[in-house]
């Protein structure tokens, strides 16, 4: 069977788009991706989104977005997997094209955060926890991260300030990404004095929720139009795993089993080991989750993932670059769209189009999108197509 390739990518800047609607955000990303794919017409649209039904009071995006993209008639389905919705939609697009049932699919992740503000938004987002037994106690995603980080600090006793490495790296890398929300470096001092949000998680440990939309066009390699001159990126591994929804139902909340399983599955399919990748786009929705993702993927022993932040390993010129375009922390976290942003960013790196952020000779990427505290984990291996 012909390779499944990313023929085109599109994104809008992440930010607070008070003047742009949910549907306009999505349509702009979709049209940009189709244009980048040489005008290839999709037969299906897979949409990653979390909040539209609660925040924008809009469901059935599977009809709305093809309609407003002037693609009425095609297959359209929304995927919801909390913060992993975008990765999940990409997985569905991959399966559709790989199966041969769909020639070309467009995958779009879209999130409209700013249709509500404050506690109502917190509650809408927290509905992705266990509503009866977590949100009912006033828990939020940030509080979940607080529980995890507190346990980590207690169990492994890392220096508290070591976690600063992750937001600092994200901000440093976002400077060169024109689509990122915060393009300014931050200092250790700023981290150390950041206000506490959900102890021990401070404001710099959490990625800001923001509006955004990103899209990719997936097709078979033999269907890519001749007019497409940029390098192609193939999907060589794809895997999704789930864990308990509620954090309290895990005997070991620091294990991030789904994160481990998804990496193992994607790498097995690609015929590689995790250490064979040139960079790793992980989910730093909270700095502790970046640490646990590194450990779950096997890049560090349990309890030692934080050390990778200190020795330069994770920088763009290091052995295992992460968050190469700013990550969730500095690009911004458009929840259901974030997983597609990760794919777009990795594809740009692999195409050699990451500008001042370019990782030299980037040939292979591991991309992982988490929903909640790795309640859902989606992993993909992407590779530059030679020639």
């Amino acid at each position, binding site marked *: 069977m012909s390779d499944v390739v990313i023929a085109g990518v599109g994104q809008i800047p992440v930010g607070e788009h008070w003047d742009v609607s949910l549907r306009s955000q999505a349509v702009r990303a979709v049209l940009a991706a189709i244009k980048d794919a040489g005008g290839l017409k999709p037969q299906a649209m897979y949409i990653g989104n979390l909040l539209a039904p609660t925040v924008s009071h809009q469901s059935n995006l599977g009809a709305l977005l093809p309609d407003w993209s002037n693609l009425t008639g095609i297959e359209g389905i929304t995927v919801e997997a909390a913060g992993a919705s975008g990765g999940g939609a990409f997985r569905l697009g991959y399966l559709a094209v790989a199966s041969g049932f769909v020639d070309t699919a467009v995958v779009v992740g879209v999130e409209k955060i700013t249709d509500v503000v404050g506690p109502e938004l917190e509650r809408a987002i927290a509905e992705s926890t266990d509503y009866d037994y977590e949100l009912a*106690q006033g828990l939020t995603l940030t509080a979940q991260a*607080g529980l995890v980080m507190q346990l980590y600090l207690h169990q492994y006793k890392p220096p508290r300030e070591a976690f600063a490495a992750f937001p600092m790296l994200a901000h440093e890398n976002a400077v060169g990404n024109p689509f990122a929300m915060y393009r300014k470096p931050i200092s250790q001092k700023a981290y150390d004095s950041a206000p506490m949000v959900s102890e021990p998680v401070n404001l710099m440990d959490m990625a800001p929720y923001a509006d955004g939309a990103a899209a990719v066009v997936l097709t078979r390699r033999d269907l890519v139009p001749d007019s497409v001159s940029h390098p192609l990126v193939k999907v060589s591994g794809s895997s999704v795993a789930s864990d308990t929804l509620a954090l309290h139902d895990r005997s070991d*909340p620091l294990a991030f089993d789904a994160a481990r399983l998804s990496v193992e599955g994607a790498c097995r399919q690609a015929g590689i080991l995790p250490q064979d990748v040139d960079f790793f786009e992980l989910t730093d929705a909270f700095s502790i989750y970046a640490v646990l993702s590194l450990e779950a993927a096997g890049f560090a022993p349990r309890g030692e993932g934080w050390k990778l932040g200190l020795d330069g390993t994770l920088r763009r010129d290091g052995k295992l670059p992460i968050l190469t375009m700013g990550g969730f922390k500095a690009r911004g976290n458009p929840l259901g769209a974030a997983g597609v942003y990760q794919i777009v960013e990795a594809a740009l790196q692999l195409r050699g189009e990451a500008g001042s952020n370019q990782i030299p000779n980037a040939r292979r990427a591991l991309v992982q999108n988490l929903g909640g505290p790795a309640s859902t984990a989606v992993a993909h291996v992407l590779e530059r197509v030679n020639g």
Partner: protein
Amino acid sequence: MENPRHWRIRKQRYALVGEVCPHCEVKIFPPRDVCPNCGGEAKTQFAFSGKGTVFSFTVMNDAPAGYEKNLPYAVALVKLEEGPIVTAQLTDLGDQPVEIGMPVEMVTRRIRDDGDEKGIIVYGYKFRPAFASQH
């Protein structure tokens, strides 16, 4: 209105009623259709003692709608004496700092209040510090 939903889980909220698995005897909270330990059908009710220890905790400064009045509040993973872990707010802390391993016991309190407009007030379990002598 969500009244049927709150009514449905009232036994869990007011009395920590879970299950004991008839096959492997593991204690389950909240009740499930399938035992997470052995995969057998779970249906035998079991009332937990309400005693446990703090497994982890956080102090929240931002709250979801309906919970703002309590801010700032502490939420913990409480490991119940019988095994399961529950998520619950801590209460009656006074000046006492929260610590992992701290003994706690269940009390029933108001856990959510949407104010006058919607008029939904939800009561349920919270946990307060337990005297060491009780353990």
